[in-house]
């Protein structure tokens, strides 16, 4: 098969880039794989992309780019296809609309994959007849606003398949969007094997990593760690990452007198190097789902203490087997779970080994295998019944149409408020 991923900016860094590169490289062992980056700000990709994967861009925003896309007046006008409610809307334009449409009209791929909601809308609406139209959800629907959900309702029924990172998110999509005939499947995000030996678990360090934002609830973790230090002053906590909450967390650490035990490490390079120094991983997130970071910690052999919030950790961590799940927002419960594993070296080693073995399912080869099986099944079904595909797309267009009208009304209203031209 020829598989084509449509990405926002493949030359940058971030979990989506890393996961997509890992998946693309693994798929490339048996398929033709290309990554099409809508934007290009840099000469070379910041992350390593396997040599078998082709990479190209649609709009070149580099200073010295010969195309002059930066100065193209069409790039100054707002996008119309890319939904206004998408967080990345500000980076899209009439120019990106046009280039993406041209690309999707001409693509020779068998499968076209959109890697974020706005791009999946393009894939659903503009891919020429023939290729499978697939959406891949990097986050979960729950964190998307109402406006965006409405935009997705208008387009997603034309997809052939929607791939979410968790079962819970697959259920949420089925419940909240109307997607008859769209295959909705949960496949975990690809997390490459760490490039160094797993943690040996002999140190006395708890490690957390993520953006320091309010929703991540590192304040709960710092408070919980006061309880840990009271019982086990020989254990310490490292929190990797930067973000707007840093000053508040700094103040909390000083206020609780934890400055010899809790350290704000700042942004790290490859996180695997940091997990390998720890003996226990922790994620206090309240509402936000777990990112690939926790899966990466497990791949480094760390047991995980996480909050049992609706999306993510519950499917990642098996309570008592690969880690502990605790109620969100409760420092006392979090401290108790941490101490339970801190005080029991044997349990920590057992859970760490189980996390290491269990997380092999996140390996790009395993994840690519599941994607390939899904695509192959849908392609075969399409070949078996050529009419069915076009019927499905036509029906999808009808279902989506009703929502699209509703959305368009809102879009226009919203754009008018923002002072944006939509006609």
């Amino acid at each position, binding site marked *: 098969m020829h598989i084509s991923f449509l990405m926002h900016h493949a030359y940058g860094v971030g979990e989506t880039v890393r996961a997509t590169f890992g998946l693309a490289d693994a798929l490339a062992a048996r398929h033709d794989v290309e990554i099409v980056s809508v934007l290009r700000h840099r000469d070379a990709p910041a992350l390593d992309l396997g040599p078998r994967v082709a990479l190209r861009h649609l709009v070149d925003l580099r200073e010295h780019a010969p195309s002059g896309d930066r100065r193209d007046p069409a790039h100054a006008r707002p996008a119309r296809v890319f939904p206004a409610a998408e967080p990345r809307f500000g980076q899209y334009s009439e120019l990106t609309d046009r280039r993406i449409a041209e690309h999707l009209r001409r693509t020779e791929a068998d499968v076209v994959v959109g890697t974020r909601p706005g791009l999946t809308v393009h894939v659903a609406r503009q891919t020429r007849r023939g290729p499978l139209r697939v959406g891949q959800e990097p986050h979960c629907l729950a964190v998307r606003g109402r406006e965006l959900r409405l935009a997705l309702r208008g387009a997603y029924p034309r997809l052939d398949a929607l791939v979410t990172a968790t079962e819970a998110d697959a259920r949420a999509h089925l419940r909240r969007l109307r997607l008859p005939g769209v295959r909705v499947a949960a496949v975990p995000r690809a997390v490459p094997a760490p490039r*160094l*030996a797993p943690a*040996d678990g002999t140190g006395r360090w708890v490690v957390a990593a993520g953006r320091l934002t309010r929703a991540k609830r590192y304040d709960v973790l710092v408070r919980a760690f006061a309880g840990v230090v009271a019982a086990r002053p020989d254990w310490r906590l490292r929190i990797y990452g930067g973000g707007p909450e840093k000053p508040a967390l700094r103040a909390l650490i000083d206020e609780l007198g934890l*400055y*010899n035990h809790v350290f704000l490490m*700042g942004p790290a390079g490859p996180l695997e190097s940091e997990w390998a*120094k720890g003996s226990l991983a922790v994620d206090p997130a309240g509402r936000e789902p777990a990112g690939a970071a926790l899966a990466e910690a497990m791949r480094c052999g760390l047991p995980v203490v996480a909050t049992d919030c609706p999306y993510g950790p519950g499917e990642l961590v098996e309570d008592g087997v690969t880690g502990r799940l605790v109620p969100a927002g409760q420092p006392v419960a979090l401290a108790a779970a941490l101490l339970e594993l801190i005080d029991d070296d044997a349990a920590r080693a057992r859970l760490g080994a189980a996390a290491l073995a269990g997380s092999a399912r996140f390996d790009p080869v395993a994840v690519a295998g599941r994607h390939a099986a899904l695509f192959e099944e849908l392609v075969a079904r399409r070949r078996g019944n050529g009419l069915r595909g076009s019927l499905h797309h036509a029906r999808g267009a009808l279902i989506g149409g009703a929502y699209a009208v509703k959305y368009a009304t809102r879009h226009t209203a919203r754009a008018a408020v923002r002072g944006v031209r939509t006609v």
Partner: protein
Amino acid sequence: MPVDLKADCIADSAGGLTFDLNVPQGTGTTWSAALVLRLRAGADDTGAAEGTDDEVRLPLGPNGPGRLRAVLPSTVALAEGRWHAFADLGDGVDPRRLLPGVNDLRSLVDRRPLAGIGRLGVRIPYATKLGNLALRSWLRGPHAEAGDILVAPEGLTVTGRLYGASPTAGAHAEARARRAGLDPVAVPLTVDGPDFRFTLPFEELAARWRHGSEPWDLWLCPAAEVPPVRIARLLDDVPEKKQVFSYPALSVPAADRELRIGPYYTLDNDLAVRVSGPAGEE
């Protein structure tokens, strides 16, 4: 365009470093291939004066397909400072800057050498602001390693461990003002084997404050005949402590105003105390 060369660094607990380079398969090397470390010229560039070199070449040999390896043993002394890393493939082309790969520094995290060690070498790999691979190096003997620090109304309590010297009667800690013309403030030391502890009261520092932000450096004087030792935090994997090991400052009443006094690590990871006046008053 030449391919970027990345080096993975693996640290051992003795202070040695192994560099594993990823090179395009089939890259040939000659007998003269080397990983080159060059001391960055700067104000504190005293390496050459001490009789050590400011360029170190480590033989670079094949280590499997597409991999080259060089080793910096703990026994090779690197002058204190920042060293930039280059690869000279021995092909007549100028040495190329190396980029950081994946580091395995776990054995540095809670590094605890034998207290009797004569001279302590510490090398921590890091990425420069421009994203290149560099090493931060310290070479100290004796060395006073700072551990937990407590900031409390009665003063600053520092615990730590002395390497390469034994404290005797009369051992004490000293705060030395960076502003000229001030006598050091000496405080007694509590010693338990190589471990030490002292409390530096804030009053005396506050009494000598004149204006702005006044730093005091902390030293350990183990014995009468031994030169004083700078107190620093070196024995872990964090190349720059200042941001990570951060401590609160306390308000201390002086003659007619409130001063802020708190400990911090300098850019060389030495321990210091800052006495500063009310905000906005210089």
